[in-house]
């Protein structure tokens, strides 16, 4: 990101000091505790025509994810695995600091961090997405549209993508002679685990979970960690100019593991309700 570009609200030093003063008393600007998440609302199946979809509200942050499953040719190095692609787009109406045009660095980072969480947790059994190894596999496109930015896009998008994948249904392909054709039978995404992403922000010497827009604007550093259903760490991403000490990281991992469990149950509940109806 070039220096002239402003991705966040320009927050004066007085505001930053107030936020830090508040944090040392254990209070955040919106009244949350240091490790509290904002209200997480999930609307699964928001896009009727997609194979799977979810709209997630995390406080004022709103993201929409759609999953499309097509037939494709596998990559030469993984002939017996399906293809997974995550694309992210932040709409210009989502934030005053977002411009139209090709995705910028931050948006690409967003797509890649979400991709990494899903891929490295082995959420999807990719070998089950192969139809004819080396020739035809399912290719899964996860398209992310950010509708409203108020901090912590990593987590919001990750939850939406995971929920969308868990409810994805697509036409089963069958091999007929030399050809691969789509049948009328539907199949579900082979989901093995539920990855949950937890983002920590560091402001001054304080660490908080789920930073909102203003907290992201004043934070020194952020750390996004993803845990699978067995609460094993499977992906991390660090951002910002500041740093974390090893102790801080270990402490955050413990906090994040507990939080990941809570959020996984919210996602599970939402998916269960969506499948019922």
């Amino acid at each position, binding site marked *: 990101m070039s220096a002239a570009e402003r991705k966040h609200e*320009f927050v*004066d030093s*007085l*505001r*930053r*000091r107030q936020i830090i003063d508040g944090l040392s008393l254990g209070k955040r600007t919106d009244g949350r505790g240091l490790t509290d998440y904002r209200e997480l609302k999930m609307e699964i199946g928001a896009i009727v025509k997609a194979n799977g979809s979810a709209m997630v509200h995390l406080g004022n942050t709103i993201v929409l994810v759609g999953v499309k499953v097509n037939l494709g040719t596998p990559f030469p190095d993984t002939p017996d695995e399906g293809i997974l692609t995550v694309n992210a787009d932040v709409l210009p109406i989502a934030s005053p600091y977002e411009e139209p045009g090709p995705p910028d660095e931050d948006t690409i980072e967003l797509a890649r961090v979400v991709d990494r969480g899903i891929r490295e947790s082995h959420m999807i059994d990719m070998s089950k997405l192969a139809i004819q190894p080396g020739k035809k596999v399912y290719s899964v496109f996860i398209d992310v549209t950010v509708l409203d930015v108020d901090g912590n896009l990593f987590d919001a998008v990750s939850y939406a993508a995971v929920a969308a994948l868990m409810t994805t249904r697509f036409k089963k392909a069958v091999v007929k002679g030399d050809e691969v054709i789509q049948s009328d039978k539907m199949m579900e995404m082979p989901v093995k685990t539920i990855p949950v992403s937890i983002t920590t922000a560091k402001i001054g010497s304080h660490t908080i979970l789920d930073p909102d827009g203003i907290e992201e604007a004043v934070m020194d550093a952020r750390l996004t960690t993803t845990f699978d259903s067995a609460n094993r760490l499977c992906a991390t991403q660090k951002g910002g100019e500041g740093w974390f000490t090893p102790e801080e990281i270990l402490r955050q991992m413990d906090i994040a593991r507990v939080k990941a469990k809570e959020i996984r149950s919210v996602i599970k509940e939402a998916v269960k309700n969506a499948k019922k109806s």
Partner: protein
Amino acid sequence: MSKIRRKFVVPGDLIVRGDYKPVANVYREGNSIYSLKVGLSEIEGRRVRVIPLSGRYAPRVNDVVVGIITDINPYAWTVDINSFFSAFLPATDVFGKRFSPERDDLTSRLKLKDVILAQIISFDRSKDPMLSAQGPRLGPIRGGHLVKISPVKVPRLIGRKGSMTRMIEEATGTRIIIGQNGYVVINGPPEKIPLAIKSIEMVEAEAHLAGLTENIQNFLSKSLGRKIESEKFDGE
């Protein structure tokens, strides 16, 4: 003291005919005075002016403003003063005549996003407003809470001879620094600040209404559970 006559006007509206003096946001054609802005026209004696309902800050020399440092180069700071121009504060103003860009580091005095109280010392159409941070009370503001209000509401927040500010300060036990550009810094005990912010926001929201002083006075009295006095002036 003569009575003030107020009327809602849009640009081009005839405010008054006759021997009157245009003061602000009005223009004269022949002996008629017309409005330049959407706002409330005021005729006070022979003086005619329009108080706009909205708008950014138009810099004026000698105004004291609250600014936020948005950029630093080897010779000057760029300062956001809520205007259509960004102001600049030359390094020589802070370091003195012996300033040398090789020796002196600007960030040692003012960093990015720092807040300052400064005075506009020169401004015309051909160049951006220049600030000075030398003078009584001027300089960096190291603490407090920054509130941004519309610059056109600043006169209402100050009140007649500073009465409105004084009333809020006395009632809430805070110190309020007002920049003419609509940036306001409140200092004081943390528990008192929310009420001061609320009062200032109320002044901004109701600036165009009659009886503003009484409304604020009632609001403060109610919130604090004790009677708040406002200063009385002749003719009010």
